[in-house]
């Protein structure tokens, strides 16, 4: 299957910059998947998990807390104010955050981290 470049950006760093076969994430309007040749799109990303599938079948996950996705030409760019790769997530901390969370938003953030970490 055809691959395309994907970038996951935060204000402090470039978290991910690689070629993917498919990208799955959730916008504020629902689940969405990108394959090569997707039409141009700008969308608001909901707090949750981003899954990136590589050509060799391996998968990488990250938790994003809001932000945007932009599809243009043949590349996908996700820009999130806060994002973490699954491998970097501190599960204990996320669990504590989930318990301590008071607002819906902080619950969603903590849950997103746990989901991404558990799946990897």
């Amino acid at each position, binding site marked *: 299957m055809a691959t395309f470049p994907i970038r996951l950006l935060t204000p402090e760093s470039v978290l991910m910059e690689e070629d993917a076969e498919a990208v799955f994430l959730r916008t504020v309007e629902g689940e969405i998947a990108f394959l090569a040749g997707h039409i141009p799109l700008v969308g608001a990303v909901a707090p949750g998990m981003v899954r990136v599938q590589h050509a060799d079948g391996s998968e990488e996950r990250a938790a994003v807390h809001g*932000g945007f996705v932009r599809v243009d030409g043949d590349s996908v760019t996700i820009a999130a104010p806060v994002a973490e790769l699954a491998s970097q997530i501190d599960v204990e901390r996320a669990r504590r955050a989930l318990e301590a969370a008071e607002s819906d938003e902080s619950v969603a953030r903590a849950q997103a981290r746990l989901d991404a970490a558990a799946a990897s």
Partner: protein
Amino acid sequence: MAGGQERILRRRIRSVQATKKITRAMELIAASQIVRAQNRISAAAPYQHAVADALGCVLADSPVAGGRLVGVPDAPEKVMVLAVVADRGLCGGYNFSVLRAAERMVAAGSSSGQQYRLVTVGRKAVSYLRFRGQPVERSFTGFSDRPSFADARQVASVLTESFTAGEVDQVLVVSTRFLSAGTQVVETRQLLPMPLGASVRHEEPENRPLGFTELEPDGPELIEDLLPRYVEAAVYGSLLEAAASEHTARQRAMAAATENADELTKTLRRVMNRARQDSVTTEIMEIVGGAEALRQMSQSIEEI
């Protein structure tokens, strides 16, 4: 008497050398910070471009919702100005040149009937503007040498809220751009409305049909969500560049101070040596004079 002067000079040399040690240390610290600050600028750039790019793309696609948010207003009545300087001095003309630029702009605009509201970053801005009697609406301090994204968010929220509430027609930033390690310039640029050309692909003469880009959610809602992100990213970029410029300015100022201390030590040492030589010469003269007097005295006794 002469020995007293020598002692004073010796003390001055010691004090100049102690100062030199401090300025030298500050120079080295600043130099090490420059590299780190530069890395932070380049790490932040992709995010900044991506957000500006996305907003530009959405605005281009929904001209109705764009309206007030794009372009350069002809005659803005109410303008908000963000001035970014340092928390500390000892960095040459860095703080002053930014504040002077901001002050001039406010003075020029006020005389033509515009209303200005000042928001500042850096402790030096507060003291300077208060002394000049220039009211400051909000000031942020404590992070000028190492701004975090959370700091930028705080500053940005003040700007975005005032603009979206319609309290101001234009938001400008006066700060120092870090063009390279050798060149930094004070620059005033428009943050809101979004100036055309702020995004890279916005201006491409492709003439895409409207609605070509899928928007999720629809234009106005998406813009409401994207605009604060764009301001945050732009403010963060400005803060990072200002921080790098601050460190560069401080390194330069401290290098000059260290050099000056060397020069001063050399001059003082020369004066001190001369003073010591003078006192030695005077002493010899006194001894010779005394011996001569004794000899003459004993001669005159023999004659009697």
